């Protein structure tokens, strides 16, 4: 593995949820410790399964692992760090200022920015503490700060009149005011991060087009701020020898190889490693020690008996959506879980039942919408380009509102406009033009605003004004989109996830965020389920059986209604395949489909 050679002190694994950052970080840590190094493993994984992986309870303090000499762990919970910060700010005024004022303040401090800066603050301590490097040869992080955070910290404008004066009047850096660290400290943390002799950053991806694209985006963003040399680690690649004439496994194999073959050019120039898909869950030391062994055949266990999974299919779920024949349906979930596909399948189901449907997607990669063009008479399609929308919004703001600012002020405004909130707002603004149609037809969207954004906008009233302006006298009986979204008769939010630990956890976080805004998700959809697809190869069967616990967690703890969509052998594009995706082979029957009933390729 190239990424393991000549390692510097600090290692960061970055990538979106569910690609296996934490597993790779753990496996790397064990490998280095086994080689006699002193290693500190730092996890910010919200699933916080590092403790579980090593069978030790660790928390927000350095804890040695007895099972691996030389290895210690530390868990940072960014949510908890953000909560501590919120309490510090809000605590003293609770009961002093009016309740609704206090509530408004708390919401302002509940965004992604606060969490991220709070996490970076914790990193800073580790990156700049000389004692750490005396005690450890390597410090390994299972996440990395985003380009947005680093850029902010690099901007002189973000600091002017800020920490120097002790006034928190700057931008998304606000949270730092309460954390009272010195500017010098942040500067040396950023310096350490950008020095390849001290830090190596691994971009973790899966062998999927969307995942590779995301890695490419991160690479571009980091390169632009001078972090040029990352290592690409493609995790969980299915080996041809593991397909064992399973048509589904073969289809997955071909799809992954095709995705790797058409990898973005910029990524090709990086050192690249592939880690093969393992049948086992990455829990326990033997499993971790096997993860990074190339061609390391793990002895096959006994044949897996998969329990018969009884779960409603998407078509059954749509039966319950029909209601009054119109309304807004929003698919929500982290990137890469297949929101656009599910949105398209829901739209096709509704349209083929004769309802007028408008499907609108924001997935820039979605050729999917085009494959449906003109296929159903009562299905209309539209696309919103998130980058284009955000760019237009940014340009507009800078040209109009920022025209009188000096260079520093302009730079700060530009960076504020690069925050994740801005993109969400710009996209949702575009969507809100379409929402009004939901009074007479079904509008299906592959995205939804987070509860935080809604609360923020609702609190400022800005949203209300904006919508009133956009809706004009259209005669729709609602006052704010917030109210429309809260009304389960008008709006149904469907949460899309995968039957894996981190994606389920992230989906649960999205749900609690929505509940904060009094929006109750209507149903959950578990996408790309292997357990539902009845694979035949031993490796795929083992992985399918690993899903059962996660599916159970969704159905018993999180979801009021749910559907499971099996992993498709064919790319689910076009009318016929989307219909197939929504229906289990034999509805309400649990018999295994006969071998060879899939058409691979």
């Amino acid at each position, binding site marked *: 593995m190239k990424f393991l050679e000549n390692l510097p002190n600090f290692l960061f694994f970055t990538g979106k949820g569910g690609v296996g950052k934490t597993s790779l970080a753990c496996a790397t840590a064990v490998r280095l410790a086994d080689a006699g190094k002193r290693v500190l493993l730092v996890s910010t994984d919200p699933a916080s399964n590092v403790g579980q992986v090593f069978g030790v309870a660790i928390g927000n303090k350095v804890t040695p692992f007895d099972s691996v000499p030389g290895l210690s762990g530390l868990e940072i919970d960014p949510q908890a760090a953000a909560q501590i910060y919120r309490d510090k*700010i*809000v605590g*003293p*005024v609770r009961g*002093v*200022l*009016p309740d*609704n*004022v*206090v509530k*408004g*303040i708390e*919401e*302002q*401090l509940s*965004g992604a*920015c606060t969490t991220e800066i709070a996490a970076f603050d914790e990193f800073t301590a580790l990156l700049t503490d000389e004692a750490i490097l005396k005690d450890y040869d390597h410090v390994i992080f299972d996440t990395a700060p985003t380009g947005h955070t680093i850029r902010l910290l690099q901007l002189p404008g973000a600091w002017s*009149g800020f920490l120097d004066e002790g*006034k*928190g*009047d*700057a*931008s*998304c850096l*606000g949270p730092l*005011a*309460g954390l009272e660290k010195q500017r010098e400290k942040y500067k040396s943390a950023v310096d350490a991060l950008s020095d390849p002799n001290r830090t190596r950053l691994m971009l973790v991806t899966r062998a999927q087009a969307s995942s590779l694209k995301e890695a490419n985006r991160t690479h571009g963003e980091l390169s632009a701020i001078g972090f040029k040399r990352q290592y690409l680690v493609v995790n969980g690649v299915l080996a041809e020898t593991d397909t064992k004439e399973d048509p589904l496994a073969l289809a997955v194999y071909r799809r992954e190889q095709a995705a790797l073959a058409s990898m973005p050019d910029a990524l090709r120039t990086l050192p690249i490693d592939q880690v093969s898909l393992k049948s086992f869950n990455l829990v326990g030391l033997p499993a971790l020690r096997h993860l990074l062994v190339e061609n390391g055949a793990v002895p096959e266990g006994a044949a897996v008996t998969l329990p018969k999974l009884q779960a409603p299919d998407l078509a059954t779920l749509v039966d319950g959506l029909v209601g009054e024949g119109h309304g807004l349906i929003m698919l929500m979930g982290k990137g890469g879980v297949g929101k656009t596909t599910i949105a398209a399948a829901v739209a096709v189901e509704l349209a083929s039942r004769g309802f007028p449907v408008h499907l609108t997607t924001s997935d820039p990669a979605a050729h999917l919408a085009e494959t449906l063009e003109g296929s159903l008479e009562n299905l209309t399609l539209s696309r919103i380009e998130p980058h284009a929308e955000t760019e237009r919004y940014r340009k507009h*703001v800078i040209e*109009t*509102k*920022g025209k*009188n*600012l*000096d260079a520093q*002020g302009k730079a*700060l*405004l530009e960076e*504020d*406009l690069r*925050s994740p*909130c*801005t993109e969400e*707002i710009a996209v949702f*603004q575009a969507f809100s033009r379409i929402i009004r149609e939901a009074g007479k037809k079904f509008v299906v969207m592959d995205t939804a605003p987070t509860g935080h954004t809604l609360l*923020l*906008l609702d*609190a*400022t*009233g*800005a*949203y209300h*004004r*904006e919508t009133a302006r956009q809706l004009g006298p259209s005669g729709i009986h609602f006052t704010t989109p917030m109210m429309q979204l809260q009304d389960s008769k008008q709006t149904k939010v469907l949460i899309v996830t995968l039957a894996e630990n981190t994606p389920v956890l992230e989906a649960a976080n999205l749900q609690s965020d929505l509940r904060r805004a009094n929006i109750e998700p209507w149903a959950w959809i578990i996408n790309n389920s292997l357990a539902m697809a009845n694979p035949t190869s031993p490796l795929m069967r083992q992985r399918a059986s690993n899903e059962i616990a996660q599916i159970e967690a969704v159905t018993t703890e999180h979801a009021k209604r749910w559907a499971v969509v099996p992993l498709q052998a064919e790319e689910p594009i076009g009318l016929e395949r989307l219909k197939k995706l929504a229906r289990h082979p034999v509805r309400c029957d649990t018999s295994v489909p006969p071998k060879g009933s899939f058409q691979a390729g």
Partner: protein
Amino acid sequence: MTKIQVYDPALCCSTGVCGVEVDQEKVTFAADVDWLKSQGGQIERFNLAQQPMAFAENPVVKSFLGRSGAESLPLILVDGEMALAGRYPHRSELAKWANVSLPSSETKQTGGCCSGKRCC
């Protein structure tokens, strides 16, 4: 020397870009504050989301919040007395309070049609 204190609503960004629509008033005001400082004026800003204690500790601000709510911010105090609420001051007003002279070209902007929000 006159002390101007600005009590901002809860903002996650000083530029106010986190809203659906960027508020020109906030962007302009941020620039005006910089200008006043460069002229030697004494002006302080307090963000409700970051320094709520500053709001709670000042009896004028605290009772204003209790009576009118956070939606009536910003509140501007000059030497501790309420000078303006519900909108941000213009550069000319800041200059008047702080006894700083405006360049002659800017005095013309005083008043006129643009004293409210977004009317131009």
